[in-house]
Each structure stands twice: as C-alpha cells, then as structure tokens.
C-alpha cells in the first residue's frame, strides 16, 4: 500500500510539472469565465447558460486531461526505462499500475475541483447564491472520469499511446450514446439478436448514468437511491477495468 501511494504521489508530482496540464486548465478557466459573456447574449435566465456551459466545460476538459495524461504516463516510464528501477524494488507490477492510476486520478480530481470552484464562484457572482448542486454534478463527473481514466490505463498497457488515446475517446463517445443501443433492442422482435444486443448494452459502460447536469441546472430532486446505485456502478466498473489492466500488465513484456 505504501509503495502504491508513493508511486501515486510521484505521478501527481510529475503530472503537475507537465505544462500541457496548465494549458488545459488555463483554457478551462477561460471558458468558465467567458460563460458570463454567453449569458449576456441570452434573453431570460443567464444563470442557466452559465451553468450549462460551465458544467460542459468541466466535463470536457476533465476528459481531455484524463485521456491525454493517462496514456502517456505508463509509456513514458517504459520508454524512459525508469519502470525497471521501480520494479527492481519490492513493488509488484499491479501496485505500480494502481499507483499510477491513483496519481492520475488525483491529478484529474485536483483540476476538476479547481474548475468546479471557479464555476461555483461565477454563479455566486452572478446570482448571489452558492449553488452546491454544481459541486454534486462535478462529483459525478469525477466518478465518470475515474472510469474513463481506468479505461485509459487499460489501453495504455494494451497498446501504443496514440491508439490508446483513440480507444479511450471511442469508449467516452460510446459510453454517452450507449442508451441508444437499448432503443435498438426495442426494434428487434425475433431471433437471438435481441438478447445479444441487450447483453452488449448492459456490458458497455453507460457514462450517461453519471450525467446529473440537467437535474442540477433545473434544480430538480434526485432520488438518493439512484445516486447510491450510480456510485456503486461507477466504482464497480472502474475496479473491473483496473483488474483487467493489472492482469494484462502483470504479463506484459516490458523489454
């Protein structure tokens, strides 16, 4: 555990030294601040536009940071041969990978928290109220990013960085349109295709489950049970992907 946390700390430190991160963060904060300009263009409730744009910005830039940084971190260690130094110590491969993952997740969480606080402050400046719902929606985005980062980690050990990025982006897109696969099962009436398509639907990550933006923007109530099941779903899926990544990394030829 100690070794894993040490790797996580180092990964976070390394990520924070990366200029690309600050470039993303800079763009994100700029977008959040400029949401006020979009708000000015509207007729009616400016707050809705600021919240919609802000939450979309938080999600998009968190995804970019998660995808771009995750696939690079493992390959950097392998290409730079620093992985041998670490694995020569009493550190298991899965510990190394989970440490890397946790470090990455901490990086994403740190950035996401910063963006969420900027958004909440923007809304406070506009409406005079602290909208804590935005923090809840951001927490759910973080849960989504935990899963996306897990996929990025899996693809990082499976393939080359470029392909890993493409695959993770594909998972992100599929995860957001997975709901439509269910609609497909409604169209199929006979044969084995229907259960096969249904199985695909249940197996694919459904990232829309973490989307509470509409509820937060319109101040709708969300059943606690739904939140609970969503959290369990996110954590379980993330754990599953990480187990697969650890198994693959344990047998990976690093030479």
């Amino acid at each position, binding site marked *: 555990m100690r070794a894993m946390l040490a790797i996580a700390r180092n990964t976070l430190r390394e990520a924070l030294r990366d200029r690309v991160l600050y470039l993303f963060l800079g763009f994100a904060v700029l977008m959040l601040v400029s949401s006020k300009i979009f708000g000015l263009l*509207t007729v009616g409730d400016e707050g*809705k536009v600021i919240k919609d744009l802000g939450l*979309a910005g938080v999600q998009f830039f968190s995804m970019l940071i998660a995808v771009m940084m995750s696939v690079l971190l493992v390959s950097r260690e392998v290409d730079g041969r620093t992985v041998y130094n670490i694995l020569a110590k009493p550190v298991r491969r899965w510990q190394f990978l989970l440490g890397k993952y946790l470090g990455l997740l901490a990086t994403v969480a740190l950035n996401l928290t910063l963006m969420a606080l900027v958004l909440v402050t923007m809304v406070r400046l506009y409406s005079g109220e602290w909208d804590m719902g935005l923090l809840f929606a951001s927490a759910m985005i973080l849960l989504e990013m935990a899963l996306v980062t897990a996929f990025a980690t899996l693809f990082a050990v499976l393939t080359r960085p470029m392909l890993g990025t493409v695959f993770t982006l594909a998972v992100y897109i599929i995860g957001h349109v997975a709901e*439509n696969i269910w609609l497909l099962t409604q169209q199929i009436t006979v044969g084995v295709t229907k259960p096969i398509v249904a199985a695909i639907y249940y197996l694919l990550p459904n990232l829309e489950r973490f*989307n509470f933006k*509409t509820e937060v923007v319109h101040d709708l109530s969300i059943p606690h049970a739904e939140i609970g099941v969503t959290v369990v779903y996110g954590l379980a899926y993330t754990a599953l992907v990480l187990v697969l990544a650890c198994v693959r990394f344990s047998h990976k030829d690093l030479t």
Partner: protein
Amino acid sequence: MRRPLAVAAVVITLLAVVVTCEVILHNAPEADPLGKRLLYLPSPDVLRLASLGNDGLVADLLYLWSIQYYSQFDFREKFLYLDTVFNLITDLDPRYFDAYRIGAMIMSVQKHGDPELHKKAIVRLYDKGIDAMPDDWEIAEWAAWDAYLVLQDTDQAVKWMGIAAERPDAPGVLKRLYGRWRDNIHGWTAEDSIAHWEDVLAEAETKSETNLATSHIYDSYVSLHRSTLDPMLQGFSQVARRCPESWQELVDEGWLASVPVDYLGNPYGVDPNTCTLVAHKKIRWD
C-alpha cells in the same frame, strides 16, 4: 537589422492580405445564410447523440442563435422555421422555461402569414411546456397571461390559469385570478363557482382576500337564488296582476315559507320596475 525588418514586413503583409480577404468575404452578399443552415438542422435525437450528454448546452446555443437570427427579421417578413427551431430547443431541454416564453413571444409578433396558424403554434408550444413541467406553475401562469393579453383568448387564458392554480406551491393569487376570470366569462355553474370561492375563503389570509371570496360567493348565491325566485315573482305578478311590494307578500300568500335572505343573511328586495330580485351586497372593504 535588415532581416528582422524583412520578417516584420512579411508578417504585416500577410496579415493585411488575411484581413482584406476576410473583409471581402464578410461583405459578399449572402441570401439568408442562417436560413439555409436551418434547413439542414438535424433532428433532436441526432443533436442529443452528438452532444454527448450536454443536451442543455446545445439547447442554450440554439436558443442564443435563434434570438440573434429572428431579431434580424422585420415583423412583416416570414419568420423561417420558427416553429421547428423552438420545438427542437424544447425537445433538447424540455424544462427550458425561457425558450417557451420567448419562442411564444417571437411567434406572436410576426405579422406575415395566417394569425390563426401562429396562434395554434403558440398554444402548441405552451401546452408542450406545461406538460413537460408538471410541477411548475410559472409556465402555465405565463401562458395564461399571454393568452389573455396577447392572443386575447379568454377561454384559453382561463384554462391555463386553472392549470397554474392547481400546481403545487402556486401562490393563492392564481386561484383568485382563475375564479375571477372564470366568473367573468360565466364559464361554470354557480355551484362550481361557490365551491371554488369557498376553497379560496378557507385559505384566505388577509381581510381583502376574505372579502373578495365572500363577494364572489355572494354573487353566485344571488344568481342561484335568482334562478328560482325570479320565476316565482313572475308567477305571483301574473296571478295578482301586479308586482309584489316585498317578499313578505309571497310568504303571506303561501308562495314561500319565509322571506328569502342572501349569503350574508340580509333579506332580498324586489325591484318594482322589472319585478325581479334585488340584492343589497354590503361588505366592509376597509
């Protein structure tokens, strides 16, 4: 020294070319470029898919775009794809209050085309919003005022105000307004009116609210009583060949068991000119 100057000259020249090209392209005449783009506007399902979970944001962008677009039109011009655009926005975000409100307003200002069709589109848009937000009274109230003031359709206004008044957390004023409007159009029976205003009376918190409800109940009872007492007066005058001076005469002649009284317990009078019931409503408003 020469080289940096040459580089600067090249940069400035290229910048000038770029800006000139942009000025030329910007000023090139284009026949309704936005309208052409609107023609190929994707369906809400496609836009929802493409938004990757940000339906609300896409609705916002379309809404902002529509405001800019339709503000370019003269009232007498045809507002292209107006119905389609606001349907699309509200399909993407069914709880977008401003989209219903402003969409209906834009639909109402256009002078081109058949006003009945515009009215139908407005009613459709508001009905959609009212259905999409079953816990919201504001959209129904807004629709009611628009129907009352803009569409000048009192029946529709009364219907929407009734919906607004029934919604959770609706302020009491909506219930009173609904009762007044419905009384004005004689849109219900006296019994229904009494039942409604008795509800209002039970919830009244101020003297003026109590008086308003009492006044409406009073009027409804008068119209209810009038429907039975006026024919009695007519019957008496046909038999006696004159109008009775008071209700006591009808009691004395066995037409009535007692002198009829109004909601507040005061006896009714008889108008000798028209031979009809007269009510003397006495409510202290101060």
